[in-house]
């Protein structure tokens, strides 16, 4: 089955190229299938909301491809993008985001109003939705006279009125008490199960996780782990192989990553030790994996007597174990594609690039920044001269240059020369 949402290497970067450059999303790829209920889970600032708005077409990625409901969002014209908002996406927000000046009915009707549907048609729809969510008696009240739970139900009705296949919910329970939060979560599940909507739900509350088919755990703009809910049957036709680590994560969803890795390694050995020894070993390996102790220290801790806080293994066994742990840890590290440390030249390039762009008013694309860095490297290493450097900055982007205007190119070139002269 084709995924309904597909992201390929999507990055969102703010203040690209400047020294306060922030990567809200870093090369995220994911696939979400029709009628799936997924959760983007992570601490605040991990990029989960940004990811949601990328899917919504409101956040334009700095690079990468976003395909929703068969449409590549980058290739859509402005008009098509608006039509996409109207027909494909329904949004629910943490702060409900009802328009305070309009009454409940008008609020629900807004997406239909923007779509210019006929009065009889929209009247039918709004009636049915208000009845379904038990808010028909509130039709002519202003949102400020409603409780939070009522407001969120109105917002859900609004998200549904255009009958979009995908519902995006950005922390929908964040402003609700636990009882109303339950109601809203039940509603989302119902929309998924009965109405066959694909639900993408952003939350930082671990208690919500069991509602989803899959959970995308996020940290620092990356998806660090995908877990599947064994309790819920995935929608038809959807299959994906699960790694050993993922399976473990489903069993212990609350554990930090290194602890899970520690568990994996231990399971690997099928240690014949008792429970307390196991947990001691686990803690020591955790320390090693999070970089608090070296391999040598780990070995000593395995070896040391219990009175000194060790595990009291045989020295030979302890050594062997420490080596194995280190080797496996290395493998895990490799699997995580650790970025190589930047060379001094690269560091210098990044420094100068940020210095140049910090007081630059315009905005460069990802490719432009890349080209700027390339030509900076050439200039710093002396591969090209001052004039050629300036010309490359000035040359239109289509002709392979950076595409700056003449004055900016000149200014940048002069600045770079001054920096180079100073060494």
């Amino acid at each position, binding site marked *: 089955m084709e995924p309904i949402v597909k992201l390929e290497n999507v990055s969102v970067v703010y203040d690209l190229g400047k020294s306060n450059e922030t990567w809200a999303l870093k090369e995220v790829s994911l696939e979400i299938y029709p009628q799936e209920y997924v959760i983007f889970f992570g601490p605040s600032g991990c990029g989960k909301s940004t990811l949601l*708005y990328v899917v*919504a077409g*409101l*956040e334009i990625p700095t690079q990468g491809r976003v395909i929703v409901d068969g449409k590549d969002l980058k290739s859509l014209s*402005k*008009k098509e993008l*608006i039509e996409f*908002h*109207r027909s494909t996406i*329904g*949004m629910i*927000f943490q702060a409900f*985001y009802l*328009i*305070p*000046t*309009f*009454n409940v009915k*008008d609020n629900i009707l*807004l*997406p239909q*109003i*923007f*779509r*210019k549907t006929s009065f009889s048609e929209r009247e039918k729809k709004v009636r049915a939705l208000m009845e379904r969510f038990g808010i028909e008696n509130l039709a002519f009240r202003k949102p400020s006279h409603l409780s939070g739970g009522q407001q969120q139900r109105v917002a859900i009705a*609004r*998200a549904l009125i*255009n009958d979009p296949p995908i519902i995006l919910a950005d922390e929908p329970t964040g402003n609700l008490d636990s009882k109303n939060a339950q109601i809203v979560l039940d509603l989302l599940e119902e929309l998924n199960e009965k109405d066959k909507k694909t639900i993408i739900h952003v939350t930082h509350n671990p208690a919500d996780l069991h509602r989803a088919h899959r959970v995308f755990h996020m940290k620092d703009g990356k998806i660090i782990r995908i877990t599947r809910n064994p309790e819920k049957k995935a929608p038809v036709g959807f299959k994906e192989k699960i790694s050993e680590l993922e399976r473990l994560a489903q069993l212990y969803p609350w554990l930090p990553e290194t602890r899970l890795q520690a568990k994996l390694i231990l399971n690997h050995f099928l240690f014949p030790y008792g429970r307390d020894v196991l947990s001691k070993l686990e803690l020591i390996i955790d320390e090693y994996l999070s970089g608090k102790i070296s391999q040598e220290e780990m070995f000593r801790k395995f070896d040391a007597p219990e009175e000194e806080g060790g595990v009291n293994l045989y020295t030979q066994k302890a050594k062997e174990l420490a080596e194995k742990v280190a080797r496996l840890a290395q493998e895990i590290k490799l699997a995580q594609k650790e970025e190589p440390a930047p060379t001094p030249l690269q560091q210098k390039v990044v420094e100068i690039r940020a210095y140049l762009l910090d007081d630059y008013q315009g905005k460069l694309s990802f490719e432009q920044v890349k080209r700027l860095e390339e030509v900076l490297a050439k200039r710093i290493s002396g591969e090209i001269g001052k004039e050629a450097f300036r010309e490359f900055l000035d040359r239109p982007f289509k002709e392979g240059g950076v595409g700056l205007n003449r004055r900016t190119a000149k200014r940048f070139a002069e600045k770079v020369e001054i920096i180079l002269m100073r060494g």
Partner: protein
Amino acid sequence: MKVIDLFHLTFENLKSRKSRILFTVLGFSVAIGTILFLVSLGFGLQRNLLQRVTTEESLLTLDIAPAESEVISLNEETLKKISKIPGVEKVSPQAFFPAQVTFKEISSQTTLNLVTYDWFRLSGFAPTIGRDFKKSDRHKVIVNTSAVSLFNISPEEFLGKEIKLTVFLTDEETGEVKFFGIPEKFEVIGVLEEAGASPQIYVRLADLKDLPIKEYQFAKVKVRRNEEMKEVREKLISMGFLVSALSDTIEQANKIFRIIQVVLGIFGVVALVVAAIGLVNTMTITLLERTNEIGIMRAIGASPSDVKWLFLGESVITGFLGGIGGIILGILGAHAFNWLINILARALGGKEIDLFYFPFWFILFIILLSTLVGLVAGFFPARRAAKLNPLKALRYK
């Protein structure tokens, strides 16, 4: 978005910010009211003047009098000649001389004007009390207000009363003054309002055919069509007459009034500009206040043009309401001012007048103008609103 939805949503938006909109509309109303007040004062003054003179016939009439040199005189012969000039429809001569009027026991000196029955129509004046001459009238007289005041009676009471006339004629050769007592009594049928004029009475030539009148002092020459005015006028001048036309005077008066209206209008426009800047300010504040709402609407499917129209709708309706309010304020103000002026006029013994005149087209124009100003004032805030980045707007706090 459908127009009807736009109206509905705009009204909901306006309703929720009643006091702010009220003050903006009030500012607008004051400006529009000022324009209406000033310009309709101009219209009113113009109308007051023109109403007294303009019959269509009077605009086609030339007044002639013999030039001072004794080249030509207005006698029956020349009148005939004039009436044969191509384009001339009719000639209406006028002679005047002193006469004595007797009413009951009182006798007074007045000037007697001998005129044709259609003289008033040609001159553009008409009696304000009573009526004008009819062709069939015999022995009727029209008097002016100062003639009425000689007899210590009100103009209304004077109507229908009969007077006796004695005419003084000077023999041109001997210089001797002869008295002609007219045996018939004359019935007063109309009173002319002429402020500050000497006592005048008007009697038809046909009633006093027997008087030995050799020449007339003035004549009115009615031309058939406007296009022939110039030609006839030149012909009359070449015959040695002094020619003037009411239409000249009116044209000049109209020119002056147009200038007055424009000047008054400019004062009003200054007020309107101030109000428009106020509206731009209000709309900009609204924009900042609604930034979050704009983000929400964009997120749930509003296009930039939907957002733009929501803003424009608001400013246009504000402008329109300002226009309506301005008309109410302007008319109320004008009535109040008129009332005060008339109290003053009455106290000083003058006559009551309507200083203001509100032509219907001008009221329509004012409403259109204020709506248009609303549109223009809303344009830039609306464009800014439409251009907002939806996500930034959504996160705006």
